[in-house]
């Protein structure tokens, strides 16, 4: 008799399964239509690295010490700087970073002594070739400022 009981129970389980799916039919849709509406980013979102704009000096405070260059596990940062003259601190002229190989681990942001690196909130980066992802952050900041 177990055979018939199993069939009845099986049939009832199928009906119950269908009840679950049909109840979903008129529930509100969960997905967001991306290009039309955009989700708001989480406060701690880690976008690609960029130089912070300090109010007092109006520009970044990168002293080209190379701490981030050494801390980066995938060695994607190259910093160059000059000392205008003997007494003054060093100032960074070029800050190259290869976004396509950066794994966004955040070690550079943590080790920066002058806290001038921060995560941006941009996630729609694109480029036509692999080399277009090698970016000079300083030039980028000049551009965004002007």
């Amino acid at each position, binding site marked *: 008799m177990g055979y018939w009981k199993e069939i009845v129970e099986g049939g009832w389980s199928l009906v119950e399964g269908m009840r679950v799916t049909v109840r*979903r039919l008129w529930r509100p849709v969960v997905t967001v239509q991306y290009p039309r509406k955009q989700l708001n980013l989480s406060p701690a979102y880690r976008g690609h690295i960029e130089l912070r704009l300090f109010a007092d000096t109006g520009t970044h405070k990168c002293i080209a010490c190379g701490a981030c260059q050494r801390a980066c596990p995938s060695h994607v940062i190259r910093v160059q700087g000059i000392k205008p003259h003997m007494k003054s601190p060093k100032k960074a002229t070029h800050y190259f970073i290869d976004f396509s190989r950066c794994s966004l681990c955040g070690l550079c942001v943590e080790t920066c002594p002058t806290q001038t690196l921060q995560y941006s909130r941009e996630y729609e980066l694109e480029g036509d070739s692999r080399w277009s992802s090698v970016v000079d952050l300083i030039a980028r900041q000049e551009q965004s400022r002007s």
Partner: protein
Amino acid sequence: MGSFMASEWFRLIVGLVIVLAFSQLNALFLVWLERKVAGHIQLRIGPKEVGPFGLLQTIADGIKLVGKELITPRSADNKLFPVAPVLVFMPVLVGFLVLPFAPHLIIRDMNVGVLLIFAFSAFTVLAILAGGWSSNNKYALLGAIRSVAQNVAYEIPLLLAVLSVVLMVNSLQFSEIVKAQGRVWFVFVQPVAALIYLICATAETNRAPFDIPEAESELVAGFHTEFSGMRFGLFFLAEYTNMFIVSAVATSLFFGGWQGPFGFDLGIPGIVWFLAKTYVLIFVIMWVRWTFPRLRFDQLMNLSWKFMIPLSLANLIVTAIVLKLI
């Protein structure tokens, strides 16, 4: 010219044109409906971008498929390979000839209507086997062999269930069967046969939970793995047209064709009743597809040989006895 207009020939040609147009539009609409139903069941939207409510999405897919290159694998059987999709699609159209849309809207009200539909629907299995075997791909071969075994196994209970209805009306003509359901629909008289018919119909059109031949997660895409472009489009349209025919036959056999429930028509014309019921049945088939997992191949066979066929035979015998007594 006038006599030609009223002659039988003209009626046939107009009927053919209407059938082709209706079946194509219907298939496109069903593809859109399936994606919308699947979307909303899964808490997402389904096609929305192309045209109002995404209605032109299927047409856009069709144009894309027509535009795609027809790739033929080098080692494929180049005589059978291009023919297989046409073989699948052609018999499905023939089924429209005898469908009872409305009292006088049957193209060819043959007295062997039911037989004709099931004869031609059995032909698609041959075409699927041709398609699967000729594409010389292991997955396609496995899919084709499985679909042959499945269709053979589910053809028998399907016909037995239909037989018990035909026995009651003792005529194979669709209009006779629909007229016989004037007062009460056969689904209340023959509930078991209706259930068996629906299950076997889903299996016949290779729809989940019986879609073993084109099981995505196992056989990549089953028998139509190697087909690209409009060849795949034909397989796709054939499946949806087949689904329409199967539910149209179910409405006319069990749910009273163009008649309203229990005799009162509420003034709605016959064809609206017929299409409404057919689309409700199609919705049920889609609803089943997006709810249940897939049966394994041997369970599928056991379900048919050990459960469906005995049940439909018993149902047939009971119908015969009851008819004898009344």
